[in-house]
C-alpha cells in the first residue's frame, strides 16, 4: 500500500493543497514562481505536485519533471524551501512522522530532475 493510500488518497491531497499553496505564496523567496494570473490553474498543479510526492497515481516521468521546471533555473535553496513547506504542511495535518519521512524521500528522489542537473 502506498503512503498515498495510507494517509487517505485524494482527500489527503485536497486537505493539503490549500495549506501548502498558501505557504508557498506567502514565501517571498519562491512566491514569484507561483504567483500567476491564473491561480486556479496553478492550484491544480499543486494538486499534481502533492499527488506525486504522496506516491499517488500520476503520469509524470523524470523527463517531464525536467521539462516542467527547467525554465525556472531552480537552486538548492528553492528546493529546500518547497520541501520545508511540504514538511510543515504535513505536520499541521498531523500526518505521522514515518509517513512524512517517506513523502520527503519521494520529493528528494526527483530533486536532480527538478533542478535539471
Amino acid at each position, binding site marked *: 500500500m502506498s503512503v498515498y493510500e495510507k494517509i487517505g488518497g485524494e482527500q489527503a491531497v485536497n486537505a493539503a493543497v*490549500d495549506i501548502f*499553496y*498558501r505557504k508557498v*505564496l*506567502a514565501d517571498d523567496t519562491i512566491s514569484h514562481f507561483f*504567483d*500567476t*494570473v*491564473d*491561480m*486556479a490553474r496553478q*492550484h491544480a498543479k499543486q494538486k499534481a505536485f502533492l499527488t506525486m510526492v504522496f506516491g499517488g497515481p500520476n503520469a509524470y516521468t523524470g523527463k517531464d519533471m525536467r521539462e516542467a521546471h527547467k525554465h525556472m533555473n531552480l537552486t538548492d535553496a528553492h528546493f529546500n524551501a518547497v520541501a520545508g513547506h511540504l514538511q510543515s504542511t504535513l505536520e499541521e495535518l498531523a500526518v505521522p512522522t514515518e509517513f512524512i519521512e517517506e513523502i520527503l524521500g519521494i520529493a528528494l528522489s526527483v530533486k536532480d530532475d527538478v533542478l535539471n542537473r
Partner: protein
Amino acid sequence: MTTTFYWQEQPVEAGPHETVLDALLRQGHKIPSGCRSGVCQSCLIKVEGAVPVAAQSGLSDGHIADNLALACQCRAISGLRTGPPGIHAARVLARVTDKRWLAPNIIGLRLAANLRYRPGQYVTLWRDEHTSRSYSIASHPDIQDTLEFHIRVHEQGRFSRWVAEGLKVGDLLPVQGPMGHCIYKGESSRPLLMVAMGTGLAPLFGVLQDALMQGHSGDIHLVVAAMQAREFYLTETLLELAGRYPQLKLHWVVSTTEDLAGCHLPLVRAGVEEYVTNCFPDLNGFGVYLCGAPRRVHALRRGCYIAGAAMIDIAADAFLTCDRGELVGARLAGH
C-alpha cells in the same frame, strides 16, 4: 514547423504555438474577437476534429454539443476543420429602454432582452460585427425585467464612448451570453466578503440582491472602492439596503488624495488591498467575491487566499480590456 488546418475548407498555415484566431487574423480573415483570453466568447467558431479542451472551457453544454469553440483558446492543430459559428443562436437582440448617468463617468444602461441569467453573470454586447465588449449584469431577474449595466465611459473607449454618445433609447443591439460563475452560491450562514472596485459594483450588486432575497443571514461585508469620492454611485440604494438588512456592512474606500471634507459617506482613505488586508486578516470560512480591474482582482485574490479563504470559495471577475498589450504581458508573466 508549421501546421495546416482548414477554414471553410481552405487550408490555413499556422506557427507551432499559434492559435486559430491569430493564424486567421494574420492571413486577413475577418474573425470577431475581443478579450483573447477565453472570457468574452466573441471569437466563437465551429470546429470538427480533435478540439483542445481549453478551447471549450467556459462554454455552455449547448455550445459544446454544437461543436463550437473559442478561436483565441484553440491551438492550431493539424487537420482541424473550422468555420463560422453559423446563425447566432448565441445572441439575442435587445432594445435600449433607459440610459442615464449614475456618476460623472458611469452610465446606467437598461436593455429589454429575452435572456435567462443568474445575478452576477456577464454578457457580451455587440456594437457591430467587429466591436464587442463584456459587461456584468447588475440587475436581478425577480426584481426588474430589464437587464441593467453600469458602464464606465473611457475617453478613448470605442464601445463605452459610443454607448455614451451614439446609443439611444429604442435602439437595438445584440447580446451574447450569459456567462460566468460570479454568482451567489447559497450557504446562507457563512460570512461573505465582496470587494467591488469601480464598476465592479455591477455584478456584486446583483449577487448582493440575490443573497438578500435568498435570506442570507451571515454577515455580508461589501467593500466599495473608487479612485475618487465622486465616482461612488448607487450609494442611496446601498445605504437603504444596509438600513433594512443589519447583516449588510458597507465599507467605502477611496484611494484619492482629494479633500474629503463635506462628503456624507463614512469614507476611508486607503488602497483597497491594504484596506482588505487590514480589516480581514482571517478569511477562513468566508465566501469571497472580487470584481474590477484585473491587476487589483489578481492581487486581492492572492491576498484573500493567503488570509485563509479556500480557492473554491473565491469568485472573481477581472474586467479585462481588449487592449492587447497589457493582457498579453500579464499572461506571459504567469506561465
